[in-house]
């Protein structure tokens, strides 16, 4: 299964999913996408993931605890940005309709990234 298909399958349960991007940190290199639009429309998601996860210094520098998850909540959409647990160089960014419950979207987005980390062949990207 190619990477886009793997991302699509993992993200299928995420309610209200519009578009998603899988990116490599710290550069924000887009390596896979899912949902509406072409690959160029997923680029801002990959760049934002890099900006929020890789360019921001840790919140608590002494204990080195950077943010690993961001949710942007607007009246019409949610943008979820997650850092990989197994592969911290991996980031998943998803845009969803703001109809479903925030906690529900967040939980299923986490599960989607977990599934990608477990099933995708990321050797090509040296992960």
């Amino acid at each position, binding site marked *: 299964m190619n990477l886009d298909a793997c991302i699509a399958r993992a993200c299928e349960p995420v309610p209200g999913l519009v578009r998603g991007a899988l990116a490599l940190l710290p550069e924000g290199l887009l390596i896979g996408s899912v949902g509406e639009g072409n690959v160029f429309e997923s680029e801002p998601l990959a760049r934002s993931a890099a*900006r*929020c996860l890789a*360019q*921001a210094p840790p919140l608590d520098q002494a204990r080195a*605890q*950077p943010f690993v998850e*961001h*949710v*942007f909540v607007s009246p019409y959409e949610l943008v979820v940005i997650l850092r990989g647990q197994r592969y911290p160089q991996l980031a998943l960014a998803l845009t969803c309709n703001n109809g479903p419950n925030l906690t529900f979207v967040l939980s299923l987005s986490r599960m989607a990234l977990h599934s990608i980390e477990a099933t995708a062949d990321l050797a090509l990207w040296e992960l």
Partner: protein
Amino acid sequence: MIGVDWGSLLAALERVEALTSSDSGLLLFGDAPVGGIFVERGRVCWVAARGLQRRLRDLLQAHAQLDSHELERVSERCRAEGLLLGQTLVAEGLLEPTELQSALRRHSAESLLDLCRSPHTTTWASHAGRGYAPRFTFCAADLLLDSVALAYPALHGPAQRQLAPFSGPGRRCVAFVLDASTEAPLPVAESGGNGVDAMLALGRSLAPMPRASHELGTTPSFALSTTSSGHTVLSWWRDALLFAVSCADRASLAAATAQHLVLS
């Protein structure tokens, strides 16, 4: 807005905050010192800058509502007897202690901004001499907030007003000024007793959020950011202000988020 090298200012205050309660002395600015931050037992007494000595007298006069002759008389006596003018005015009932603190803090912020108009290195010089009464000292975070408020007077009031409803037990709230000329967001108001280091770390961590939302073409009502240990910060931004609310527990975070939605 006055020109300030915020990198120098923030570095100096981080250095002062890192001092311990056994440290007293002067943090000097410049190779040929043009002023410095006086520290007594780890706390700031005041900030002196060359050419601004007269300004402290003006501030004391304004707060004490003394006429210039009376102030001159007390000032002459302080010089002759080696007394501190502000504390003498308080001791003689001519100035309220809170007014002295306000004048010292205002003068210190003005002096610090003046010292940081251009990049300066700082040097720490310890001393073991006579100090100030601890009641007239303040912390590095107070000095930072005063300085930013002075540099951005139009943003200070709105920042305080918008942040006020969120203060409460176990919550740490900070409002930052977003200025394109500085890399780090500048804390302008806070509640919950945040230190300089904590506020700057929070600001730097959240700085990419407004830029990312712009990149995404979205205008979020708010954002939630979570660390690997599960600590979540609520943030939102409007124009040149970024707000962050950090809560001790999930219930408080949910309440703060609901509060933000009601108020916005």
